[in-house]
């Protein structure tokens, strides 16, 4: 049988060794007589090769001593921490003071953490506020219809002013947890300049806040690094999937709204 209609995808899979033996053999036979096929295939073989060559110098570059040292410290700290107590949150090695970016999200676990509420029990939104961790987080802070609406409409990467309590809502990401429940990571700024970094997951027809860190401070509506480190540890614990892409997120959020 003669086929000249191999798609680009088929040819690419051939070039990447991702094609089954039968079709591979067919392509090989065809290549003996079809120059155009060879040329199309060459693109995929050569781009793979060229990409690898072009990225090789990055691999050979010496690692910055600072990075190696920092990672070694983290490893040493984690190894000893586990031997002693199984502690799970570690301070980050402080980077050079002149690194302006580092201060935003890699600062040491800091005093700016006013409260941490991280429980797999969590508490429920929209029930008039009966948080399991009494008094730590003002119940009104998260249980408002405005917040629920924001969770279902604001796409990740966008902000919205919540009506009522003068809070600013920022959607960070949408993902699925270990049990495939839909979760959203978000931040809420309050007028007192505190920021709540939070995760809410869908449970039935409700949003359940499963994680919240209140970060006080001077960050001007920007969760300080220490709170996001705690968040990272939490996301790891629930085995959070990668953030949904915009298209998928829009679909999922649209589906939630339709249920209403």
């Amino acid at each position, binding site marked *: 049988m003669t086929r000249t209609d191999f*798609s*680009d*995808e088929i040819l*690419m899979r051939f070039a*990447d060794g*991702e094609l089954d033996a039968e079709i591979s053999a067919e392509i090989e036979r065809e290549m003996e007589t079809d120059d*155009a096929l060879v*040329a*199309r295939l*060459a*693109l*995929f073989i*050569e*781009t*793979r090769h*060229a*990409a*690898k060559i*072009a*990225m*090789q*110098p*990055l*691999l050979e*570059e010496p*690692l*910055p001593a600072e*990075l*190696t040292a*920092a*990672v*070694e410290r*983290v*490893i040493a700290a*984690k*190894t000893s921490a*586990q031997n002693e107590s*199984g502690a*799970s*949150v*570690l301070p*980050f090695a402080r980077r050079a003071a002149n*690194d302006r*970016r580092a201060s*935003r*999200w890699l600062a040491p676990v800091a005093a700016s953490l006013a409260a941490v509420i991280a429980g797999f029990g969590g508490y429920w939104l929209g029930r008039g506020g009966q948080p399991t961790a009494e008094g730590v987080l003002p119940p009104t802070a998260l249980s408002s219809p405005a917040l629920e609406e924001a969770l279902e409409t604001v796409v*990740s990467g966008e902000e919205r002013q919540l009506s009522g309590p003068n809070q600013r809502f*920022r*959607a*960070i*990401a949408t993902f699925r947890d270990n049990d495939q429940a839909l979760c959203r990571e978000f*931040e809420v700024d309050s007028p007192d300049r505190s920021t709540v970094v939070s995760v809410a997951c869908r449970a039935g027809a409700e949003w359940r806040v499963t994680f919240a860190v209140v970060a006080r401070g001077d960050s001007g509506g920007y969760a300080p690094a220490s709170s996001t480190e705690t968040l*990272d*540890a939490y996301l*790891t*614990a629930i*085995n*959070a999937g*990668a*953030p949904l892409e915009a298209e998928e997120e829009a679909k999922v959020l649209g589906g939630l709204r339709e249920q209403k």
Partner: protein
Amino acid sequence: MSNAVKDVGERLTAFLPNLRRFAISLCGARDVADDLVQAACERALASAERFEPGTRFDAWMFRILRNLWIDQVRRQKTAGVQDDISERHDLAGASGEREAEARLTLKTVAEAIGDLPDEQREVLLLVCVEELSYREAADVLDIPIGTVMSRLARARKALGEAAGITTTTARSRVMKGVNE
């Protein structure tokens, strides 16, 4: 249990150059990449028990690092941080090709990779450079394997055109169904 931490720690040390390369190609700047690598190491060690022996360690690490990066980008975006991370100068500078004299209108391969849309570049890096299978790349990126293939094909066409890898332009016109 502490064996898992020890194991991950040892693998991490050996894997740092690759992890850093991937980070640089994601964020395009070395200082940002180094922070990202550090954060990814931290997270990996904190969840060392979740790594399943027998599965690919590199894929696991790439996934952790990339998820951290996406979060960071969104935070910065919402915070209105103006950053120069869109310029991927570090990527092209790495190969030294930029300084090569006989540069006509074609870009170097490294430059062309740096210019790819993010979602194409990451697939290209994982499959062609880090040699993950389509399935493994799909798992790292949490996308269907079909999406991996379509993005990868687009990335390679763009790369071929930008860097002049296309073998014969006359023939490429004969190809059908390639331009979406």
